[in-house]
């Protein structure tokens, strides 16, 4: 479904993504675990077309999308939920969820229920600064669900949110998979990757290990340490 091949990105002479390979399979949740600065968000940005790589390719449904724009990728069925979602004055949650689809009101309401937001309270609220961080992230997840993408990249949907929001976020992610979307779940939470079928560990812009969630969580816990960002993995034993 989504294949990243030998991707490289250098910023100010520093390798950020360093020959990275990754495959996300259809309707599966693929976890991506990594320490701060490992290159997780940079990878998400490259896949979505926010930035472009120096080398390598991004293949989506057998088509090379490496140089496609954000809109082009989105129209093909690729989307991204940001770690810190943007806020919009004057745009209601109802409108935000219907941005590019003629969804019925009941569909919009269902997506809000999925992430634990009662529609009666939230439909007409604006996607602005008055939403809490947890509410905003849940709205973001609902908007991704409403888009029914083929692949959704979720950049740390579980970070910086309250304990009440977390189960709703996790419910939204599993629903996404149930409705047929593949998910690249970027996180540094071992708990969050528990919903994934496969997990890869990223360090210094490279995938250094992949496997089942439990095994990878154990490996991450035992081996990973703060990366020194020199383009070379610095986990224990290397």
């Amino acid at each position, binding site marked *: 479904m989504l294949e990243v091949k030998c991707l490289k990105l250098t910023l100010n002479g520093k390798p950020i993504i360093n020959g990275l390979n990754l495959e996300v399979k259809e309707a599966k949740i693929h976890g991506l675990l990594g320490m701060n600065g490992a290159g997780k968000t940079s990878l998400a940005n490259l896949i979505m077309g926010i930035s472009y790589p120096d080398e390598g390719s991004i293949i989506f449904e057998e088509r090379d999308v490496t140089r496609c724009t954000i809109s082009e990728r989105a129209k093909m069925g690729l*989307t991204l939920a940001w770690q810190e979602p943007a806020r919009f004055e*004057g745009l209601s949650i109802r409108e935000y969820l219907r941005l590019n689809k003629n969804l019925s009101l009941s569909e919009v309401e269902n997506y809000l229920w999925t992430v634990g937001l009662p529609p009666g309270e939230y439909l007409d609220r604006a996607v602005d600064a008055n939403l809490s961080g947890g509410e905003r992230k849940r709205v973001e997840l609902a908007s991704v669900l409403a888009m029914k993408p083929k692949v959704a990249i979720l950049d740390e949907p579980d970070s910086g949110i309250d304990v009440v929001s977390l189960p709703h976020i996790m419910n939204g992610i599993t629903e996404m998979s149930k409705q047929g979307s593949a998910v690249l779940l970027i996180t540094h939470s071992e708990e969050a990757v528990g919903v994934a079928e496969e997990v890869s560990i990223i360090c210094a812009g490279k995938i250094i290990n992949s496997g089942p969630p439990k095994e990878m969580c154990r490996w991450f816990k035992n081996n990973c340490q703060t990366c020194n960002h020199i383009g070379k993995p610095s986990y224990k034993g290397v």
Partner: protein
Amino acid sequence: MLVVKEYESLLEAYGKAGGNLDALENREVGNLVIHKNKVLSVNEADGIKVKTEETKSGVNIYFLVEEGVKIKYPVHLCFGVLPQEGLQEITLKVEAQDNSEVNVIAHCIFPNAVDVTHKMDADIKIGDNARFSYRETHYHGEFGGIKVIPKAKIRVGKKGVWESTFTLIEGCVGMLDYDFEIFGGEKSTSELLVKVFGKKEDDIRITEKIHLDGKEARGLAKSRLVLIDNAKAVVRGETYGNAPFARGHVDCLEIVNGDGVIASAIPVVYVSDRQAKVTHEAAIGSVDKKQMQTLMARGLNEEEAVDVIVKGILR
């Protein structure tokens, strides 16, 4: 006969501009319709007194909301100049007596203006514990040949509330010189909001001033502008914290999207009491990159994304 025709023409323009025609016919709803210097309709709802005096170039209006009366339906005002040329000077004296409450919706209609001037000079007194909400929406034509000069001095009494929104997003602004100044009493709340979409050669000057003179007075001076083509705008947002625990905020956002646009924001925050606090935020720039990327990641193209953001800001 001529007046009837004038009234019908203005009503037609008012309806096209989104005005509520039913409200103008409902005897329970207060209204005032003025074309150039002619008063075409007045309806005083219970609790409201309206006196008008036609002058050579406009109308003097005295508008009273009686003490303790909460007006059930919004009062509708309509000011317009339909010909291509004309001068309309409105002098407005408003008194909302203690414990009264009213919502006023004003439509200002100048669809054919080539050389039209609309001036409003308002002296407004909001009594103790009274609440006055004023929404003014302008509908201009595409020629830009209009000067709009609304000026108001508003005194808000103890625990009184003043909320106003001035919206000019339909048609060309022309020249706008908006100047509202509020003096807020103890525990009063004052909010000024201006939303303008400037285009072509529009020349926009906005001044929002709030003096927080009473203890625990609250004030917000907010403006939202979108400027394209060669539009120019200067926004002054001034808030003065002059009493203990007064709290004020100035919030200005100007989105610029045109090679000839010139935009400036001048926030003034002033405190003369050590227990007062006044803050400000001002941002001028192109459409926010992250907002654009977010909308594009949902499948909108660049133009559609800008449209969604701009409409939201001006809503």
